[in-house]
């Protein structure tokens, strides 16, 4: 079982879908910490994103006040920011776009950093803007661990590069190493 982390939070934007699918497919079923995914998505169209991401694992779009459970994979719903409250329940927020995005990766990362602190693993994947970089810094400032997809392997390098520039100590990794890192923790 994973001893170092109580939550794994993954952010991605343009070019992150295939990478994310690969990571999700590699997750062992016995992985305990909840996995929270934030993707930049279109806002008012019907979407089957949960099913697209993994045929193997059930992916849940949490409802407001739902408890954050172990062994579950969550996806931030369209057109809401996703946050976690101190009592480890989800909270949805329909406020202004942050970094032109709702859901914003920064909002989720920063809220999870506050609640889970050092027991957070944050991972930022390919993307064309800098959403998530500041949130990843906050995870690391709270004592948590931050990984980014190696910009050289990312379809869009702006997002992981922003995190590298902004947060000292962040670990750039190829997709295989990200998978190994998570699996190595189990």
């Amino acid at each position: 079982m994973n001893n170092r982390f109580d939550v794994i939070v993954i952010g991605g934007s343009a070019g992150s879908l295939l990478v994310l699918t690969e990571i999700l497919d590699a997750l062992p079923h016995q992985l305990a910490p909840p996995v929270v995914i934030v993707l930049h998505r279109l806002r008012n169209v019907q979407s089957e994103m949960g099913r697209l991401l993994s045929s193997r694992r059930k992916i849940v779009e949490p409802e407001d006040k739902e408890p954050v459970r172990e062994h579950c994979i969550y996806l931030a719903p369209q057109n809401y920011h996703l946050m976690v409250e101190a009592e480890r329940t989800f909270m949805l927020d329909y406020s202004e776009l942050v970094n032109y995005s709702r859901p914003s990766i920064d909002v989720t990362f920063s809220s999870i950093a506050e609640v889970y602190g050092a027991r957070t693993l944050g991972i930022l994947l390919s993307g064309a803007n800098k959403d998530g970089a500041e949130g990843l810094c906050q995870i690391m400032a709270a004592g948590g661990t931050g990984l980014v997809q190696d910009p050289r392997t990312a379809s869009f390098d702006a997002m992981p590069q922003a995190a590298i520039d902004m947060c000292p100590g962040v670990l750039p990794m190829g997709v295989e190493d990200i998978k190994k890192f998570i699996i190595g923790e189990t």
Partner: protein
Amino acid sequence: MKEDISNADFLDIINIVRLQYGYDFTGYAQASIKRRLLRFMGHMRLSSVFDLKHRLVNDQEFFSRLVQYITVNVTEMFRDPQFYRTLREQVLPKLAAYPNIKIWHAGCSTGEEVFSMAILLQEAGLLSRTKIYATDLNPVNLEKAVTGILPLDNMKDFTQNYIQSGGLGDFSNYYTARYDNVLIKKELREHIVFFQHNLVTDKVFNEFQLICCRNVFIYFNRELQNAVLQLFYDSLSPRGYLAMGIKETMRFADIHRKFEVVHAQHKIYRRKE
């Protein structure tokens, strides 16, 4: 990184606002309101929570700006178009049985969803015998809503939403565009009355066949959610409808037993007996 707000400071701020200005945010979900307080401090260039408290105690105008900033005023016309389609297909035909229809939009912000409702009613031939009571706690929102003026920029998205909601008309017939704004047609607006109502402190004021309260519950903690659900139960006529946001749920509240589910995914409920 921005300064954090400790729990003690947070409670202090909430208490000042409640005791001095009569707005009760005690039952609000903390994660969101703390984040907005921090943003407000950044926006006002306040360097410490102490400065925030100091200004709050001494400056009424500062308080008004704080309320405007920390309450969420984001809205769209036909947000979640599929929800509006369900309303159109499953709820409005039932409302048609009433000679006079009363609808309450609680937490209406600047009115976009209220105007959407008026359009649905118009297309269902029900608007002429409907009165919509649209309320919000924030007077600045209501002042905007009353004007019926919206920025033109958003109309492209709203038109898409309208079409997806099953709208069959020409959306541009519902407003007049001038320069950078549009004015929602008067014949839609004259069935709407906007006024201030605070779900935390104010009570039942009428009886409704439909209450729409979408994306307001998310800002409340569970206790406050329960209290507001009770207020809505008491404000609904028997068999009256309640519509919540599509990610909001009443399953954590005991009172859900007094409602039946009309549409689980779009969060439309109906008061039993």
